[in-house]
């Protein structure tokens, strides 16, 4: 690595001013775990890094709003999210997902905002957040805007977040009667990046309402499997439905081959893991 300018603005506003959207060598720095890999390998050679470490309390907190909505600051470390009592209580699927995300040391340093902004398609949380209907608050020179996590990533390492914007926080609607689960499949070792991850969620009133089935890692970006969602909507889970949902998901999923599996194998995994994720969500305790 080569020397660079490192600044630590004391507020979000100051941070936004220090960004230079036209200069790709100026970037915000959150936990830095992903950025450091790019810097060490020579892919990214920063001129200036804008550390968000001190950019305000709002980026650093986790809280449940009176309406039950969960707000997570962009600079909240993944480990803090994993262990936060309110998250464990009200959103158990998040803690469960984080348990196998990278490793303890990464989770101790990496932040939610960095995890999402990096937009590595193999990330575990985006499919879960999409299934839960989460949104992001982005701040920029023209003020703030909210965007759903669904659609935030537009491709490999690309998002709708502009060069002069920063993620401020994520909001997750209260779980209510929603059931949720995340099923992760690795093919080269237990702690490998996932070959695929399936997040599912639905409102449970005895039948399946507003289901979401989201595929991560095997596709260019996290993708909802809408044919499978439509298939299960309004029904109750049984073995035959699980099989059909898996088949529909495999059919529609636009999976990409890589060292973790060929297209046809990953489609088989989609089929199996969609059924397993649905079964896990259905078997878990209904949300309070």
């Amino acid at each position, binding site marked *: *690595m*080569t*020397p*660079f*300018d*490192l*600044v630590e603005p004391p507020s979000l506003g100051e941070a936004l001013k220090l960004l230079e959207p036209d200069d790709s060598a100026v970037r915000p720095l959150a936990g*830095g*775990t992903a950025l*450091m*890999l790019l*810097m*060490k390998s020579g892919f990214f050679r920063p001129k200036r*890094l804008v*550390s968000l*470490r001190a950019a305000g309390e709002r980026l650093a907190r986790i809280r449940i709003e009176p309406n039950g909505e969960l707000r997570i600051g962009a600079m909240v470390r993944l*480990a803090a999210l994993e262990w936060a009592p309110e998250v464990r209580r009200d959103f158990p699927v998040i803690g469960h997902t984080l*348990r*196998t995300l*990278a*490793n*303890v*040391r*990464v989770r*101790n*340093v990496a932040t939610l905002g960095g995890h999402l902004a990096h937009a590595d398609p193999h990330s575990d949380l985006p499919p879960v957040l999409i299934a839960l209907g989460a949104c992001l608050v982005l701040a920029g020179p023209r003020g703030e805007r909210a965007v759903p996590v669904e659609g935030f990533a537009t491709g490999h390492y690309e998002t709708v977040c502009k060069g002069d914007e920063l993620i401020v926080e994520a909001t997750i609607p209260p779980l209510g009667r929603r059931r949720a689960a995340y099923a992760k499949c690795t093919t080269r070792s*237990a*702690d490998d990046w996932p070959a695929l991850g399936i997040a599912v969620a639905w409102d449970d009133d005895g039948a399946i309402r507003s289901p979401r089935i989201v595929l991560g890692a095997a596709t260019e970006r996290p993708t909802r499997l809408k044919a499978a969602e439509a298939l299960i909507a309004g029904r109750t889970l049984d073995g035959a439905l699980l099989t059909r949902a898996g088949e529909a998901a495999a059919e529609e999923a636009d999976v990409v081959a890589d060292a973790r599996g060929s297209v046809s194998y990953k489609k088989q995994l989609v089929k199996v893991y969609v059924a397993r994720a649905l079964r896990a969500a259905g078997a878990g305790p209904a949300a309070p």
Partner: protein
Amino acid sequence: MSATRRIRFTLNGQAAAAEIGTHETLVEVLRDRFALFGARESCSQGLCGCCTVLVDGHAVSGCLFLAAAADGVKIQTIEGLASGERLDPVQEAFLECGAFQCGFCTPGFILMTRQLLDENPAPSEDEIRHYLSGNLCRCGAYPEIIEAVKLASHKVKSRTPGGAAP
């Protein structure tokens, strides 16, 4: 440009300061400025755990942690774990269980175990395997390491006032 800067931090209980480059990592600074070699860079990607150090009590990969971010924090390395000649119970347990071969990954496993037991004094085998899955031992001393973590858990409990006897 501020490509170099002075950082102040607590290193193994002592006040410390260093003139560093912004591009330098914590493991490099510990090695080159403080002659501490217990945290060592191996995979360079935060996957093997050989460069583990505790920052404010949280384990981090020293090879992916900018030294500049260590300004104002408390750092503990393997060298600071024993009090004088008296080993930490985790070190004792690793020694007694023969939980290493070449020893290169050992400081990382010991510091991770230290943090694990601070958070969860009586981890199950499944919890141990999950917690330590981000540390690699190419010699494959894993069975002995699991045994050592369990022994360390007993030792910690028996030393804590009011803790259960081993």
